[in-house]
């Protein structure tokens, strides 16, 4: 891949001229990248991002075998609570969605629903090689090969399976990116909603839910 920023491994085509963007620009996004954002708002955004980064609530939803590596994070040995992270059982209260391992087509539908129900800003962590290129299940008839076609991924954690230490490293990388204002996958999702929806609907043939799940 030529994308050096590693934020968004797949870049969808630019929206056509004259199309109205779906998402308004948030002051917390694009720190330092936008000269039109006043300095005061940028300082405020830095504070907001610090709060967001230090209180990541992870959605407790495991899609595949990788979720077995998430459980040790709450135990005494790894203890993710010292970073302010906690497991939340409902998408309404979570900020981070972890796609843990292989993702079945059937699960993808539920994952999209959950992702869209989460309040913004929200982040997606792809865990394990299955989310990156299909992993060892690349030729299975019902698992997806590339997560970033369907959801905006902020951080990938490679491995099959990555150990809990790798997860913690990935999370601290995510925190860094949030503090710098670089983890804007959710914004990217809204900006390119049509592209993502097209990909999703190509795969989910029995689309029986609203186009966007509030």
């Amino acid at each position, binding site marked *: 891949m030529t994308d050096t920023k590693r934020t968004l491994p797949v870049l969808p085509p630019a929206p056509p001229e004259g199309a109205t963007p779906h998402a308004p620009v948030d002051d917390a996004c694009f720190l330092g990248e936008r000269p039109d954002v006043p300095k005061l708002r940028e300082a405020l955004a830095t504070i907001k991002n610090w709060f967001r980064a230090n*209180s990541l609530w992870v959605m407790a939803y495991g899609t595949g075998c990788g979720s077995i590596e998430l459980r040790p994070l709450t135990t005494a040995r790894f*203890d993710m*609570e010292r970073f302010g992270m906690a497991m939340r059982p*409902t998408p309404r*209260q979570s900020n981070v969605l972890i796609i843990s391992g292989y993702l079945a087509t059937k699960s993808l539908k539920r994952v999209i629903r959950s992702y869209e129900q989460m309040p913004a*800003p929200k982040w997606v962590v792809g865990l394990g090689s299955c989310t990156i290129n299909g992993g060892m299940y690349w030729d299975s008839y019902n698992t997806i090969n590339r997560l970033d076609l369907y959801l905006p991924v902020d951080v990938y954690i490679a491995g099959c399976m990555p150990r809990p230490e790798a997860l913690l490293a990935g999370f601290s990388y995510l925190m860094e990116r949030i503090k710098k204002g670089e983890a804007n996958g959710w914004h990217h999702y809204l900006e390119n909603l049509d592209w993502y929806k097209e990909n999703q609907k190509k795969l989910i043939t029995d689309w029986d839910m609203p186009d966007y799940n509030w």
Partner: protein
Amino acid sequence: MPLATKIAWSALGVLVAIAYGLSIGGVIRKVMARIQGRIGPPVWQPFIDLGKNLFMRSATHHGVMFILGPVFRAAGGIGLFLLIPVIVGDPRFENFAFSGDLLLAMYFLFFGSLGMALGAGEGGHPHSPIGIGRGLAQMSSFELPFGLAVVAIAAQAGSFSIAEIVASQQGGVLHWNLFANPFASVAAFLAFLGMNMYAPFNIVGAPQEIPVGPPTEYNSQFLSLMMAGRAIFAVAKMVLYMDLFLGGAHSIPEAFVKTFLIYFWSVFVGAVFPRFRTEQAIRFFLGWPTAAGIAGVLLVMFR
């Protein structure tokens, strides 16, 4: 003291109570973590969580009642706090106590939960009504021993005014209702376990079972308002118990120490006990705590 000054002091008291409630929540999480052999979050983690939820960019609501739920809860907490004198004899921290305020305080204890029930019901998530049903069932069962204890204490002091109940306990540690009426105290402190919803009475939220119960649908700013409401509600309950059973407080440090001890009674119990089911909790509250409450009333009657 002019009314405006009084309002200003009470508002300050509310802010301090919220901050105190949040920090005590952080201490609890730290203590729980240490008991489980973990490092645990920093003590100021609840403040970060509150700020984070406040700074969420989008919020979803499901109707007017849904918005009013956290408002009712916060109003219940603030109303309860404003009725209870915090420091004895200090007009700045007496808030808006009046004769007969104990009855209103008992109403405010349950006002927030009822508001939450209406709000969470409109959220429409099936886990919310399950949690609410459990919560209200448990609430009505621990209300019995608590009510008996309050009746015993009020009869003993001959007044429904919290300030007069505090005044009747002055003159030494043994004058505290904790020792003057031990049966009522046992009933009330067992009811406190249920009121705080820590284990073994945390079936309402029931993590891992019905994910978080009533607040399942609450997000971002609603959630931060609920966190603040919960914090001040906890503080108000502690202050109420301090006034009723531990003889009130004469200075701010004393108030901190006493409320801390009261709250950590439920935390230490919660740290080591597994969870009761709803019907087990109801049977528990209608058993020994109620018997202790009746004994407390009898003690006052035949003194």
